[in-house]
């Protein structure tokens, strides 16, 4: 028992387990399928947010183009689903049956060659993982090998996001244009629009996210994680200790891209469409704010950040659409000015000491009766969701 406890403490798994319980047990019990599906959608942004923790928080590489990778992953999945939905029978009213409807509307008479392999699920899945990662590799390898980083890199990734949206919207015959790829129905014959499918996809998504977080935690604990931190402190020292610094940054960026792509693919599956509105400059920079709100150094915090910002967005843009942008603006400014380490930072600097103080007072009152325990209580509450958020908003 103590061994397990020590294991949990050592790996920082306490908050991981609480998050797991929250999204695997509490949410499914507390919400109907409509809301749960919404949470599932938010959790797909969690993939992007933990990717940003790895490349921005740990690697020091701010990317303003995560939407590109999210979108590429989502589109690769959507292309497969769209082809499955466009069988000749259900598209028989088109002038060219058997191709996606938007192609028919744009006077295409045959499936473009590069769409062909997306008829096969294994290819589509490989494309989800590899296409965004390769793009990330090309961009980051070219830039980091030439020692370009920081601000320049951010601007280039933003330009890539702009290029990608303009391209998708401009080539509507091949991409579905501004509407995106819609009307997705089945995955290998399994209807993804039913409630039971939504439940299954929610859990698959949640487990995948937890798996990715666990993997990232492992990377952080590895020598590579230490090196990333060391590079942020003294990049030259790492370089002159025999490490090819640029390749570590490339890795961090590629990892972030791949995580975003997984998120995008899961988004398509759960929401049932993909469109350029998740690719461009604005969504990409909003993804940065998920990580910033949750804490750019905290994987778990970043997931809470993605959840909270999106809950807020849904709530406010339904009830007070005018207020939402102001709130978003103050989030950006407030997080940067007052809480550079986000909710996770607030937790470690305020909540944790408070808990420790409380524990100390309790321990003092019991000190006469009981010898002091040598193990700290394992369960720490999630990064202060209820307690801290109103404070955050007030302060901004």
């Amino acid at each position, binding site marked *: 028992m103590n061994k397990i406890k020590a294991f949990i403490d050592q790996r920082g798994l306490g908050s991981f387990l609480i998050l797991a319980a929250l999204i695997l047990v509490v949410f499914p019990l507390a919400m109907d399928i409509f809301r749960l599906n919404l949470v599932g959608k938010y959790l797909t942004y969690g993939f992007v947010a933990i990717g940003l923790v790895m490349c921005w928080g740990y690697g020091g590489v701010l990317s303003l183009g995560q939407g590109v990778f999210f979108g590429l992953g989502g589109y690769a999945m959507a292309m497969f689903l769209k082809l499955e939905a466009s069988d000749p029978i259900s598209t028989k009213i088109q002038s060219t049956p058997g191709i996606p409807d938007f192609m028919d509307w744009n006077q295409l008479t045959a499936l473009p060659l590069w769409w062909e392999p997306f008829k096969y699920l294994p290819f589509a899945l490989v494309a989800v993982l590899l296409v965004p990662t390769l793009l990330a590799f090309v961009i980051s390898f070219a830039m980091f090998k030439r020692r370009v980083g920081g601000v320049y890199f951010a601007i280039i990734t933003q330009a890539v996001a702009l290029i990608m949206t303009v391209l998708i919207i401009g080539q509507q015959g091949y991409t579905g244009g501004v509407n995106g790829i819609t009307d997705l129905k089945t995955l290998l014959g399994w209807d993804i629009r039913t409630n039971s499918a939504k439940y299954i996809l929610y859990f698959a998504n949640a487990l995948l996210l937890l798996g990715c977080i666990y993997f990232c935690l492992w*990377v952080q604990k*590895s*020598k*590579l994680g*230490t*090196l990333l*931190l*060391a590079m942020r*402190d*003294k990049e*030259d*020292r*790492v*370089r*002159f*200790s*025999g*490490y*090819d*610094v640029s*390749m*570590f940054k*490339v*890795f961090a960026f590629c990892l972030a891209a791949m995580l975003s792509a997984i998120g995008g693919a899961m988004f398509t599956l759960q929401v049932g469409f993909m469109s350029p509105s998740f690719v461009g400059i604005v969504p990409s920079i909003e993804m940065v704010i998920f990580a910033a709100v949750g804490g750019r150094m905290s994987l778990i915090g970043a997931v809470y950040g993605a959840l909270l910002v999106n809950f807020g967005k849904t709530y406010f843009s339904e009830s007070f659409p005018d207020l939402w942008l102001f709130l978003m603006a103050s989030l950006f400014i407030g997080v940067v000015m007052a809480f550079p380490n986000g909710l996770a930072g607030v937790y470690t600097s305020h909540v944790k000491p408070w808990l420790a103080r409380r524990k100390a007072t309790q321990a003092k009152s019991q000190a006469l009766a009981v010898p002091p325990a040598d193990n700290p209580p394992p369960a720490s509450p999630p990064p202060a969701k209820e307690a801290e958020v109103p404070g955050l908003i007030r302060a901004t």
Partner: protein
Amino acid sequence: MSNTDFVLAVEDLTVSFDGFKAIDALNLYVDKGELRVIIGPNGAGKTTLLDLICGRTAASAGSIKFKNVEMTRLAEYKRVRSGIGRKFQTPSIYENLSVFQNLEVSFPRGRGVFGALAFKCDQEVRDQVQSVANEIGLGELLDMEAGLLSHGQKQWLEIGMLLMQDPELLMLDEPIAGMSARERELTADLLKRICKNRSMIVIEHDMAFVAQIAHKVTVMHQGKILAEGSMEKVQQDPKVIDVYLGH
């Protein structure tokens, strides 16, 4: 340029910044096991020379051969891996990591991306960390956060991080700057100990310290070598006296 017995052979090395030649057709040869001290007035190009050798600055012309292998166009990390270690002027350590982690990260295994992912801190690494830490006098402080060390201890830690890689050529830029007299003595002993099986280049201003450690002294002035030889010989060289006392 034929092959030589020297560990380091620098020939006709030149670097110019916008036409200003910081290093001007410089030749420098360092023997195996030699501890060479480079002295010279500010702006003589001492630090730039080290930067060129380790690859921090790109040479405009000339050749740098380490163990008869041409280094001039190699990337920095490749030079390090072939055995060149470089300590910076201000202590350059990872302040947020512990002393142990600082040394562990410098261990020359798992240097690629996937190597680093798979790296395990096994007994070999721990032994090496412990022995280096003992060597630099931080054997008791392995768990301390490096940022909390004193200035002198930080300098030693950085030397220790280099020792982890067991380089054949170790270059130190003003290792005793800002140290107390006691720390200087300890550092001199340390340098004498660690140069037993490697070559070293040390930049230093403190003449007493130089006399204590140097096998051979090179005097640089305006990007060129002014004099070279034993401490006594160099000190009596009229050109050197002129540079230090003249102007």
